[in-house]
């Protein structure tokens, strides 16, 4: 099936390492990443850059390796090969909390909130690296710890306002509806004041209204907070509407990188989703997408 797709990004669409108008250094730069689990190759030859204020989407069928890219970026998995540079630092093999402290934040495909803690505590945990006091101040509480708690709580309130979750502050997150939990997870990532935000299927399992709300938050994050993002999403409508550039993956390899429109009509991408199709069908699908 994807035998047609060569190792390197496609022949018809240029890989576009630098989108037009960009002169800056990339925020994150991935080169030749290979990741295997006891023989199973989850990622092969993954190359891409994400630039300032860019919304970069990663698409691909189930098992294509999208989440694996996030796990490599955030330090959960260590790739066997390749380089990963973030904020000017080589982060391959660095432990997750160090990468987080460099300014990378993410959400998870399956919600990973601290379910026994309330909403405020979950968001305050996003501020963990910003607290700036240690165990001794914590035991003493009065003074440094208390001041830092109040100051950081103020930032958390801003996020609560931004995500419109005022009504849930003191409830344990495990009790809250799915859509709200997704929002809180986004809030926890935002509380970190990240330099790069990774969103793994932020609207999966949401109804139309919830999806629209989430799309609005993502746009606000880009336009107001100006945080570059990598978005993994199966909802093509959302990707087409929001993304600046898209990378399509299949069997652990990037098959095309470009504008949403270019990638959507790329033959290898269509084959990745539909399987081997003849030229007539391909032209038909491309016509429908155009």
């Amino acid at each position: 099936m994807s035998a047609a797709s060569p190792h390197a990004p496609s022949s018809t669409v240029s890989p576009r390492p630098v989108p037009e108008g960009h002169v800056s250094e990339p925020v994150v730069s991935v080169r030749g990443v290979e990741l295997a689990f006891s023989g199973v190759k989850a990622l092969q030859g993954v190359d891409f850059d994400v630039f300032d204020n860019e919304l970069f989407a990663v698409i691909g069928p189930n098992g294509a390796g999208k989440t694996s890219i996030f796990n490599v970026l955030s330090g959960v998995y260590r790739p066997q090969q390749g380089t990963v540079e973030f904020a000017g630092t080589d982060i391959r093999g660095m432990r997750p909390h160090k990468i987080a402290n460099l300014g990378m934040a993410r959400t998870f495909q399956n919600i990973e909130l601290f379910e026994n803690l309330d909403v405020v505590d979950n968001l305050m945990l996003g501020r963990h690296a910003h607290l700036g006091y240690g165990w001794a101040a914590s035991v003493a509480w009065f003074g440094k710890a208390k001041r830092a708690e109040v100051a950081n709580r103020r930032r958390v309130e801003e996020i609560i306002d931004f995500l419109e979750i005022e009504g849930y502050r003191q409830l344990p997150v495990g009790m809250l509806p799915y859509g709200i939990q997704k929002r809180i997870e986004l809030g926890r990532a935002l509380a970190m004041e990240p330099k790069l935000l990774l969103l793994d299927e932020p609207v999966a399992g949401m109804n139309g209204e919830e999806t629209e709300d989430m799309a609005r938050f993502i746009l606000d994050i880009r336009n107001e907070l100006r945080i570059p993002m990598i978005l993994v999403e199966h909802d093509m409508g959302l990707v087409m509407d929001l993304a600046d550039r898209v990378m399509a993956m299949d069997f652990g390899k990037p098959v095309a990188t470009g504008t949403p429109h270019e990638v959507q009509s790329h033959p290898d991408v269509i084959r990745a989703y539909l399987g081997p199709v003849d030229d007539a069908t391909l032209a038909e699908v491309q016509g429908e997408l155009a």
Partner: protein
Amino acid sequence: MTTMLRSAPPAQARKSTGVRGRPLLRTSYHQDLALANTPAKRRSVIGLVIASFVVPFLLTDDLLQVLTLGMISAVGAIGLNLVTGYAGQVSLGHAFFIGVGAYTGAVLGGDPDGAMLGYGLPMWIWLPAAGVVAAVAGLIVGPLAVRLRGLYLAIVTLGLVFLGDHVFREAREITGGPGVGRRGAELELFGIDFSSMEPISGLSRGQAQFFLALVFLIIFAILGRNIARSGVGRAFGAVRDRDVAAAVIGVDLTKYKVMAFAMSSFFAGVTGALYYAVIGVFEPGAFSLLLSIQYLAMVLIGGVATISGSIMGALFIALLPRLSQFIAGFVPDGLISVFQLEAILYGLLIMGFLIFEPRGLFGIWTRIRNYWKGWPFSY
């Protein structure tokens, strides 16, 4: 339900009391962060403190000592709750850290002319030292928790108890060995001898020790609350609930697991030194698996991840032998002994709480409180 949600506009971070008629409405973050952050909590804390100053004058010295030991155990239970309840690292090794504290206290604060090693140092040295030495032991053991989880960690910490048990039995110059034992540290603070048989400024020995334990419990409960409500306590909760997510938001798992063990062991060390100073003579056999299980029972029965629950649990376990003596009065003679009855009660209570009220006595107390808050409406 809406009154439960606290409003906290950023503009008003001043200290102010709850708005009249809506006692749960908070107008500043300081109120959210306060030690006792609801009027009900404040009232019950004040009530309890008053009660604890009246109780010693109503009970016999014999019963007072049970409560004194219960309050001292509560310090250790808070410690175990920090590592197991808050940070989620199941430890069966608490007895070991209590033992380390007990012997550190006994050696540093013990009678220099006694049969065993003793330096006769004052309490303000031996008590913190017992905590520190136990905490150092915790620091050494903590990294195990980084490699192991759940059942595996429990088993390894269990090994610690066996190791300690062996060392304590063999180190006769320090511990006296099995069947002999040794005296604990001298209980003397600010020139007051709390072990004296003479009345101490009008208080009996039992009353004086009760107040001493009460003061220490209050201090350590506040320290425990401070840890729990700060960034450290939150990080513990994050490590417990989702370790991958905790790391990804910047929590150093190694650091916080080790910290949880060290802090927990500090509390255990203090408990060990104080407990056996009050008891007098103690044997190395005291620090067996049974002691670890008693402390786990305090946490489970009292309530996981609550400071007040740890205290309730410890007092409950301290009173359990009295309770079983009482119940044994109704059991036909020769059927089972008081000790067997106590063991059965332990087992039943732990199982019962785990199955029916996982939030422990604290959970029962919250339900009673919520019931009365809503009374006469049962919503």
